[in-house]
Structure formats: structure tokens, C-alpha cells
């Protein structure tokens, strides 16, 4: 009998492996991916569904605003900076003009302060509504998107009615808010105060926002699948968050009641009654819930501000060509995404010598390598979405 020696050897050497040999795979999430909110790229090394190393790659949207600011005048820069975090464009302008006003030593008229505050809070509401819209979408629920966007549309319409821009209001001027249309004009000078009916329309819109927030709560907070997908996922302890510079609602979700609106004086927030909502565990659910509660607080602030808005001038007396005196200052503000600040170095000219833009999302997503270690691929998306970043705010 002829025995195939090769076959025998092959059979004797082969063994059944009990340990499953798996191969690691590099998954390139982004820069074009439906849920990276723009051009964020994550290089994830995954073993099956579990990622053991995720490295973000940013810079696809770097526009060099810090350099561009050095060749522009102060009024021109507000045009640029409301494109940093474009879902809350208005809020970006505030710390910058406040920084310039600080160097100039200007007192901003009360009415202008109130208008700034109302519009900032409306920008916060619209930004948080975008989060309310996009976050369930990342978990697969499409309908909350439209409920949130519908209300955001209402808020943006009001913003547009005042400023003329939905996303890029460019409404703040050093010393106040945009004073007049054709300001140099000797023939036709139109003051840009709030348009008639704005206060009543805002009051109504705020009520509608509250209704929509209730609906969103029913749709999202009442859903067991959402809870299963977010509770205990992506837990961020407060001390780690602080060390990475994670700020805003993401920090408050970790249980820290810290809000720059309470401790800084860039806008007269001390006149109004509002609370700082905080989370308990710092997980994805808390980050969602804190933002939901913040919408309610912002609505409260807007309602109070509308009731108490004083009349008066819209702008302090400023020279026509603004030259900011020498000096340097750092002004930070509580933006919808977190701490937004400008370190302004002026050399006494029409434009800044150096402008450092501290944007919230940049620090907020620097936590990603830490927080995404060892999570499942669906959780990458859940955590990513819960951090609520905007790529313009990351790359500047």
C-alpha cells in the first residue's frame, strides 16, 4: 500500500487552534465620514469591533486665522472669527470685542450689553439644538434631528432679523453693536436697533423652544435604546477633563459646576437668575442631558433679559478709525462649546500684533486618544458625538 508521506506529515502537524487568532485592522474614520462633523479623521486600530488605539488627525480645515488676524483691522477680524465655531457664530465675536474694549478702556452702553447677551444666549440655544439634532442621528434616530432643527430655524430667523446674518452675524463692533447702516452717510443714516416686534417674537420663540425640548425629551430621554447606548459610555472624570482643558458642558457633565458666565464679567450675567446644570457620571448620557438642561437655562436668561432690556445708545463713543492702545489681555467667555478666549496683543495700531485664539473644541477633542481607548466602534461614534465639537473650532 502506498502511503502519501506528505499527507501523513501534514495531518500530524496540523492542530486545531483553540485561541482564535485575530488580525488587527486599521480603520480610517474620516476625513470624509458621515459622523465626524466635517473633516476630522480618526485612525483607529481595531480588533474586530473593539478599538484599542484611536488617534485623531486634525488640520484639514486649518485656515490660519491667527496669522490672518495680523494683517487685518479690528472691524475686519470679527468677520473672520464668527467663522470659527459656525454653529454659534455670534458667540465667537464677544470675547474678541471685549478684549479690544478692555485695552481701549471702553464702557459699553447697557442696551448694547443686553442685546449682546440675548443674542449670545440665542446662539447657545441654536448650537445646543444642533447637538440635540445630530447626537440621536449618530445613534441612528433620525427624527429628533428635524424637531430640533425646526426650532433652531426659528431662533436663527430672529438672529438674522437683527444682525442680517444667520451663521455669520458680524454684528459686534468695538464699543457696542453694529450702530448704523451707512454710518458715514450724511444723507441716510439708519440706526441698526432691534427690528420692531423682535422682543415679542423672541418671547414666542422661546416658548416654542421649550415645547420642542419637551418633545425631544420624550423622543430621546424616554428611549431605552438611547439609554443603553449612552449610559456608562465614555466616562470622563473631572480631573482628567480639567487636565486636558475640556470645558463647557463636557466639563459640567462630569459634575463640575463651573460656568464662566458666573465668574467672568464679559457680559452682565450677574443680573440674571440661572442655574448651572451638572451631570453625575460624566458619561455620554450626562453630556446630552446637561445640554438639554442648559437650553432651558438659556431660555430663562433670554426671557429675563427681554423683560428688562433698557433703552439707550447702542455704542460707546469710539473714533472712526480704531487704534487699540498697546497692551495685552486674555478674555475668555462661556461659549456653547466651552471656554472660548482671545489673547490679544496690541501694538497700538489698527490691527492686533498677535491674536491667540483659544477655542473650546480644540481642547475638547484632545481628550479623544484617552477616552477612546478600548471602546467598541459604535461607541467611538457615540462618544465622538457627545463631545459636540465643530471642526472650524478645532482647526481655526
Amino acid at each position: 500500500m502506498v502511503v502519501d508521506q506528505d499527507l501523513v506529515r501534514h495531518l500530524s502537524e496540523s492542530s486545531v487552534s483553540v485561541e482564535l487568532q485575530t488580525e488587527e485592522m486599521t480603520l480610517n474614520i474620516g476625513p470624509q465620514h458621515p459622523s465626524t462633523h466635517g473633516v476630522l479623521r480618526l485612525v483607529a486600530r481595531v480588533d474586530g469591533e473593539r478599538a484599542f488605539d484611536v488617534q485623531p488627525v486634525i488640520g484639514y480645515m486649518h485656515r490660519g486665522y491667527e496669522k490672518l488676524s495680523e494683517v487685518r483691522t479690528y472691524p475686519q477680524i470679527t468677520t473672520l472669527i464668527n467663522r470659527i465655531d459656525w454653529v454659534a457664530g455670534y458667540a465667537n465675536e464677544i470675547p474678541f470685542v471685549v478684549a479690544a474694549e478692555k485695552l481701549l478702556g471702553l464702557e459699553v452702553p447697557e442696551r448694547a450689553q443686553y442685546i449682546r447677551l440675548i443674542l449670545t444666549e440665542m446662539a447657545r440655544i441654536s448650537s445646543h439644538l444642533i447637538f440635540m439634532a445630530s447626537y440621536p442621528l449618530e445613534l441612528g434616530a433620525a427624527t429628533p434631528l428635524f424637531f430640533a432643527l425646526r426650532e433652531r430655524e426659528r431662533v436663527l430667523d430672529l438672529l438674522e432679523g437683527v444682525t442680517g446674518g444667520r451663521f455669520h452675524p458680524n454684528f459686534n463692533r468695538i464699543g457696542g453693536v453694529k450702530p448704523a447702516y451707512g454710518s458715514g452717510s450724511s444723507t441716510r443714516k439708519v440706526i441698526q436697533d432691534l427690528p420692531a416686534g423682535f422682543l415679542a417674537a423672541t418671547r414666542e420663540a422661546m416658548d416654542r423652544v421649550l415645547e420642542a425640548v419637551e418633545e425631544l425629551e420624550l423622543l430621546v430621554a424616554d428611549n431605552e435604546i438611547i439609554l443603553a447606548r449612552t449610559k456608562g459610555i465614555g466616562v470622563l472624570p473631572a480631573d482628567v477633563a480639567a487636565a486636558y482643558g475640556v470645558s463647557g458642558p463636557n466639563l459640567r457633565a462630569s459634575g463640575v459646576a463651573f460656568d464662566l458666565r458666573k465668574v467672568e464679567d464679559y457680559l452682565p450675567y450677574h443680573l440674571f437668575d440661572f442655574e448651572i446644570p451638572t451631570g453625575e457620571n460624566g458619561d455620554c448620557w450626562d453630556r446630552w442631558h446637561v445640554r438639554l438642561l442648559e437650553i432651558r437655562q438659556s431660555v430663562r436668561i433670554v426671557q429675563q433679559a427681554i423683560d428688562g432690556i433698557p433703552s439707550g445708545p447702542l455704542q460707546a463713543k469710539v473714533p472712526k478709525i480704531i487704534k487699540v492702545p498697546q497692551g495685552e489681555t486674555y478674555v475668555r467667555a462661556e461659549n456653547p462649546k466651552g471656554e472660548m478666549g482671545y489673547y490679544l496683543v496690541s501694538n497700538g495700531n489698527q490691527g492686533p500684533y498677535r491674536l491667540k485664539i483659544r477655542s473650546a473644541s480644540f481642547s475638547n477633542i484632545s481628550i479623544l486618544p484617552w477616552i477612546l481607548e478600548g471602546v467598541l466602534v459604535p461607541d467611538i461614534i457615540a462618544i465622538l458625538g457627545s463631545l459636540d465639537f465643530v471642526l472650524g473650532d478645532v482647526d481655526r
Partner: protein
Amino acid sequence: MAKGLWVTIYTMVRTIFRPGKYLATVNYPLVKETPVPRARGVIALDQEACTVCMLCARNCPDWCIYIEGHKEEKPPDKPGGRVKVRNTLDRFDIDYALCMYCGICVEVCPFDALFWSPEYEYSEVKMGAMLHDMDRLQDWLETVPPDPELEK
């Protein structure tokens, strides 16, 4: 879960039966929303009012306004009067592909030659066509709305 299902079915029923009240969107090319009067849609130019002072071009953060002009002598109104020198506009282009819609040019114009119009439907297939010349900008002037009333 049940509450979420209730929200969607409730919205569906009320949207079907009272679309006028509850519909959040419009059939865009068929129905159009009116933009607010202050909306920064497109910049209109009043050629008559422009004195070619270059202020807008110089204040533009993007350098997207191109102006050329020349001096023109006007005969005196009365015989024996002074000969008037007037600046005449030869070229006034705004490159909307570059424009950031900040409105600084409109604000700095001392002669009320520039206005914002809320008109928005002027997209083009080719980028070069986004450069509007002075005649096109003049045409936008008709769409400029009166200023809104102010809140007291």
C-alpha cells in the same frame, strides 16, 4: 419607548391634517420664504451715488471689490461758473466667490451707494460667473427693501 412612538405618530397625524400650521418646511422652488429685510443676500450698487472713493475696496477684508474710475469734467451749470470735476465709475466688480458677506463695504460707504438686498438666488455653475459687474450690481438695487421699523 412608547412616548417616543406617540410623539412621531402625533406629529404625523397633525402634519397630514393641518400642514398649514405644523409643516416646518416649504416646497422650495414652488413656495419661497421671504427673507428678513436685513438679510445679507447680495450687495446692490447705486452707480449714480458712487464717487469712486475706494473706501469699500480698501476696507474689504478679502479684497474682493475691484474699482476703476476716471475724472470727468462737467461743463459749468451757469455760463461763467466753475468747471466741475466729477469722478466717473468705469468698473465696479464684486467677486462673490470671494466675498465673506461681512457688510463692511456697505457700512463704510459715505455716499449711500451700496446696499444690502436679501436676494439670494444667484448661484452659478462656473466660479468666474460669480463676479458681478457694475450693471449687474445696479440691477440688484430694485430688490433692496425699505428698512424695518425699530423696536422701541
